[in-house]
């Protein structure tokens, strides 16, 4: 295969990489004044990368001698990643405008672009080395983003914490990779799958456990979730929204790829790990969220909880299960970005952001439309029909039941009642409690309101109309792996 064909297949990453470099130059010369231009240019670059997916990059097959794979699965995940990243770019200006001291600098969209390129590599990885490089590119951008508000102690703490723990996880992952390479003699997923199919050895098993531990850290599944609430609380809210959406999609997509493509024959081994991580995430995410008083921490535990549900689909280990996970992720991204967009609207009279749940009190009277949207996101995250979040849970549980995992489905579903409690608490605060001082309206124009409205429409019952499309697309994406 000639070089041009390889490049055509990796076009989205090429577009993102070149775009990021060019925009970095613009921001270096343009200074802080160029933020607005760079932001919109970044959105355009993301859009361009999405367009590039329609070419050979969408279904081209293997590139660079088996290092990189472009198939329907990676396309699905990449589209989600690009959308989430674009929203993260767009929601930032309103937030930074109002926080004292730190303005939004043009590095922000550039870092997001680099992170998106890394995430694209992750979901396209067909080799342990591509996997690692993509993961590190994404993570390094994320560490910087977490501490983006340099003068804010919490933000700096979040960045440092994320970095130290992330480095540890990378080490664990790398150790697993070296074990697998040592015992199988290859880093390519296909070759590893053959070795796993041929027989078992202790080294391979250890490698598998370490690799899953490293990936579980990135997707913040229990028991590797400890960093999540702190980082989510400390990081600037748009960055938190980004962390809760795109990197989750990438990490789970990567997990699926490794589990199915590289370790498919060892299903019985990793299924135990995935089931444990799923149930532990659901339970811990639900129970620990109850005591939270900060909305960002609450949403952090909610994201842990949601990862658990997504993993239930992976535990099924079937194409339906993987399709369920993809559907779940698509809907989850809409719900979680919507919730964070509402959180961004929470500002006190001075324009400073507030994050306590109590300050939402009585929002249904002061800002009825915003409260209604938030209530929809909360009910949807809790998985109550007729909102679209129900279909997400339905898809993964359906797959689990069809794969014969009844106890898993039953326990998971029972635990979602616990989760419903804290989502309900937010609704209760907004609707039943006496009004707190109203949030001041932002002046960032109709953009944020429009984004909230779009997210609300997606999670509303109208979302069901997309099921034929979403279902067909996700199953096609899932079949690409098997």
């Amino acid at each position, binding site marked *: 295969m000639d070089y041009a064909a390889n490049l055509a297949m990796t076009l989205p990453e090429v577009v993102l990489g070149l775009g990021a470099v060019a925009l970095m130059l613009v921001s270096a010369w343009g200074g802080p004044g160029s933020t607005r231009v760079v932001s919109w240019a970044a959105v355009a670059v993301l859009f361009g990368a999405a367009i590039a997916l329609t070419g050979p990059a969408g279904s081209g097959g293997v590139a660079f001698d088996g290092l990189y794979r472009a198939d329907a699965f990676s396309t699905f995940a990449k589209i989600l990643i690009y959308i989430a990243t674009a929203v993260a770019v767009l929601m930032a200006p309103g937030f930074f405008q109002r926080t004292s001291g730190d303005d939004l600098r043009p590095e922000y969209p550039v870092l997001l672009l680099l992170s998106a390129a890394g995430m694209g590599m992750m979901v396209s990885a067909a080799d342990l080395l591509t996997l690692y490089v993509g993961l590190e590119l994404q993570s390094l951008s994320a560490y910087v983003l977490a501490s983006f508000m340099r003068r804010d102690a919490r933000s700096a703490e979040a960045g440092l914490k994320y970095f130290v723990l992330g480095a540890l996880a990378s080490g664990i992952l790398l150790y697993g990779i070296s074990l697998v390479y040592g015992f199988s003699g290859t880093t390519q997923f296909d070759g590893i799958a053959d070795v796993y199919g041929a027989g078992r050895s202790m080294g391979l098993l250890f490698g598998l456990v370490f690799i899953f531990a490293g990936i579980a850290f990135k997707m913040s599944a229990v028991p590797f979730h400890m960093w999540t609430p702190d980082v989510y609380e400390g990081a600037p809210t748009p960055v938190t929204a980004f962390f809760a959406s795109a990197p989750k999609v990438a990490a789970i997509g990567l997990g699926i790829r490794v589990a199915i493509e590289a370790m498919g024959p060892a299903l019985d081994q990793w299924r135990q790990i995935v089931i444990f991580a799923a149930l532990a995430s659901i339970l811990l995410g639900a129970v620990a969220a109850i005591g939270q008083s900060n909305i960002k921490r609450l949403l952090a535990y909610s994201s842990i909880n949601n990862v658990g549900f997504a993993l239930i689909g992976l535990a099924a280990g079937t194409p339906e299960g993987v399709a369920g996970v993809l559907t779940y992720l698509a809907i989850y991204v809409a719900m979680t970005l919507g919730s964070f967009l509402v959180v961004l609207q929470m500002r006190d009279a001075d324009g400073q952001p507030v994050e306590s749940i109590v300050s939402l009190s009585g929002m*249904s*009277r002061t800002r009825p439309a915003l409260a209604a949207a938030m209530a929809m996101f909360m*009910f949807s995250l809790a998985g*109550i*029909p*007729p909102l679209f979040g*129900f*279909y997400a849970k*339905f*898809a993964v*549980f*359906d797959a689990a*039941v*069809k794969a014969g995992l*009844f106890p898993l*489905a*039953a326990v998971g*579903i*029972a635990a*979602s*009642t616990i989760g*419903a*409690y804290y989502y*309900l608490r937010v*609704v*209760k605060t907004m*609707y*039943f409690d006496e009004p707190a001082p109203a949030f001041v309206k932002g002046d960032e124009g109709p953009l944020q309101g429009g984004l909230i409205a779009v997210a609300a429409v997606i999670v509303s019952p109208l979302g*069901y*109309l997309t*099921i*034929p499309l*979403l*279902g067909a697309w996700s199953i096609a994406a899932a079949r690409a792996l098997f």
Partner: protein
Amino acid sequence: MLAIPAIAAVACLFLSANAARWTALIATFIDLALGIVLWTQFDIGGPQWQFVEQGVRLGFFGWDLGIDGFALLLIMLSVFLMPICIGASWRSVTNRVPEYMAAFLLTEVLMIGTFAAQDLFLFYLFFEAGLIPMYLIIGIWGGANRIYASYKFFLYTLLGSLLMLVAMLYMAGTAGTSSIPALQAYDFPADVQTWLWLAFFASFAVKMPMWPVHTWLPDAHVQAPTAGSVILAGVLLKLGGYGFLRFSLPMFPEASGQLTWLIFALSAVAVIYTSLVALVQADMKKLIAYSSVAHMAIVTIGLFAFNRQGIEGAMVMMLSHGLVSGALFLCVGVIYDRLHTREIARYGGLSINMPRYAILFLFFTMASIGLPGTSGFVAEFLALMGAYQISTWTALLCTTGIILGAAYMLYLYRRIAYGEITSDEVRGMSDLSTRELWLLAPIAAVVLWMGVYPESFMAPMRKDVAVLLQRIDRATPVSDSRPTAGNPAAAAAQAPEHHETPGEAH
């Protein structure tokens, strides 16, 4: 029929308080008119499923609607009570009226949808979605302890129905279809049936509610606004009974047969225990809520009697209870609006200064007890007669419940309406206004109609009962009261309680 309240609900959100009231009232009346048209068009004795409407399939579920006799009657109940609910909250709800009306209309859509759904998952969708507006109604417009009550209501019912969802997923996966009529004809293996039955039971028993998972009901009733209580008692509780009728019995006949003992035991406990609890209540709404639990227990007994009388009786009981307890809650609401307390001890002697109110209240009290000539009598008589053929003991125990029911209802009435007026505030209460009279009078008329000529209500479901009986016939549990013909002595020896049956039968 679904579209009208849905559109009206959205419209209400953008209107002022008064306009929202009128919009809601008109929308519910249109739906009532459509319901009457539906009833007159319904072909009694025709095909089992009528007005079938098949829409798009969206991945896992299809928009399949259609009704049989059971569904028709329950839809009628819903559309009949709805304008009354709106009327009941005309003056008593003053804050956030547009949202309130929207929530009610949404509830109506979801209830009708639940009864008309022909697809397993569509049913679940409507069934479960009903929680959201009810949660908001209790939580926003409820009494002092409303938040606790709304949580309890929401989480109890959610946990139950989620287990049902797992069972539904399994059923659809195994049978390869999620259409309810197709599943009703599908035979699951007997051991699987037991598990599926238990999962459905978890949901419907909470919704019903059966003892011992009934505790959410008194809290929810007490805290909900009057119209919320009416719709909760009138229609939402019926979802449980409807679920047993639509799913548990026809889809898992063997399991139903095997587990009848469980239903009978829980129901018998419920009838006696909750009746006793009702006797000592100091709060009017709580008392009526406990009486609801007792009445719903008679419904479950009738349903699991596996014979025509039992099932028809249970069905009439559901309709009758929907009307009567709804009316009783309205009666409570009427005096609550005047004195703002539900404490029984604060009232007394209302028959002196509120004669019209006293008469209607007496009528509904009698209907609740099951006085002949009212719908309650028809229902209790049929349900218990059906149960008697299966289990004399259960019938015996439940009949004591009726006596206890008379005790607590009459005791309530005596304390409220008779005696001397003791306080000035009670003396100052005015009699029913025209609006309130118009709320209660139609219910009274229908209750009488159902009591005197129940045939109108039994005809539409007769054929469905026959179909159901044919389906569950093979699993009918052995009766404990009927000696085998030609071998009476042996049968009597096997069934020790046999000797008391002749006396009871007449």
